């Protein structure tokens, strides 16, 4: 159980935890925009940590570097995709959920 594998196990567990909270957020949050918060942020960090874990397991090699490239690509692409979807939602008239209209 060298240091690298312990590190990779930790990263994978961390990644899985954030995946879990993102999915719970996706299910529990009341409206479209709040769900986007969960998936946008949760998945970005979760993918980054999981791929980091896999890269550590691969060790310092070309494949490890390629896994890091995918992680960086997802790091850039995921918020942009979330932004694009929320923009489409806003422009085509999805009303964000307001706290008051629940009580009233």
């Amino acid at each position: 159980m060298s240091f690298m594998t312990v590190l990779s196990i930790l990263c994978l567990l961390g990644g899985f935890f954030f995946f879990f909270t993102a999915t719970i957020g996706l299910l529990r949050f009341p409206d479209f925009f709040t769900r986007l918060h969960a998936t946008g942020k949760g998945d970005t960090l979760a993918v980054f940590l999981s791929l980091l874990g896999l890269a550590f397991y691969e060790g310092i090699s070309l494949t490890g570097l390629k896994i890091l490239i995918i992680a960086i690509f997802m790091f850039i692409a995921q918020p942009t995709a979330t932004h694009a979807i929320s923009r489409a939602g806003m422009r085509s008239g999805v009303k964000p959920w307001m706290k008051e209209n629940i009580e009233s």
Partner: protein
Amino acid sequence: MEVTLLIQATDDAFQVMEKAKMQAVGILDTATRLTSETRTIQERKLKAIFKGAHESQSGFLNFVATFAILIIFWAVLSGKFDAFHMTLGILCSLVIAWLSHDLLFANVRIGDIRVIVQRFLIYIPWHLYQIFLSNFHVAYLALSPRMPIQPEIIRFKTKLESDISWVAFANSITLTPGTVTVDIEGNEFVVHALSKKVADDLNAGEMEDRIAHIFMEADHIYIQDVLDVSRIFSALK
């Protein structure tokens, strides 16, 4: 009799002088107009040359920079470093760099890239910390039974100019706790925030200054930046 003659003579003399003065003024005007025109033409030509030089120089520099980055990307992608595949890689990178040479660094001044990259690397740890915070915030919200959120939409004027800083700022907003960039109209960011506290953090503009610091926006120059930049430029010279 002589007096009237004298007066007439002086009148004529005055008129001649008047006419001469008018002509002199006319000549002077045309002279100044000519010189100013030539100067503006000169300036415009010089500017065109500079811009052209900068354009072509930055065009060529763009091409070389894109080519270098693509070669590194190719080398990492294909693990084979034997002659055949490397020549293939160089050929492909040349084609792609030529095809999209103006795409990667469309309007970034070449001299500043080194400074921007340096500052971006310093910005990354703070950014990662923010992302961890935001995820714990989302985790707390998702797992807590009563979900204390008051979502609202904020319109937020920004001081940044270049579109790359806008993009970096928008992505950073999406990744920091509680806020997602929904839209940009003119230079106004429409942001969906989860709670009042988060909205105030955004309006405090602490992150905006950091982004401005990275992309060296004009109105955020500090003394440190000038020292920073001069050291770089001396190295560049």
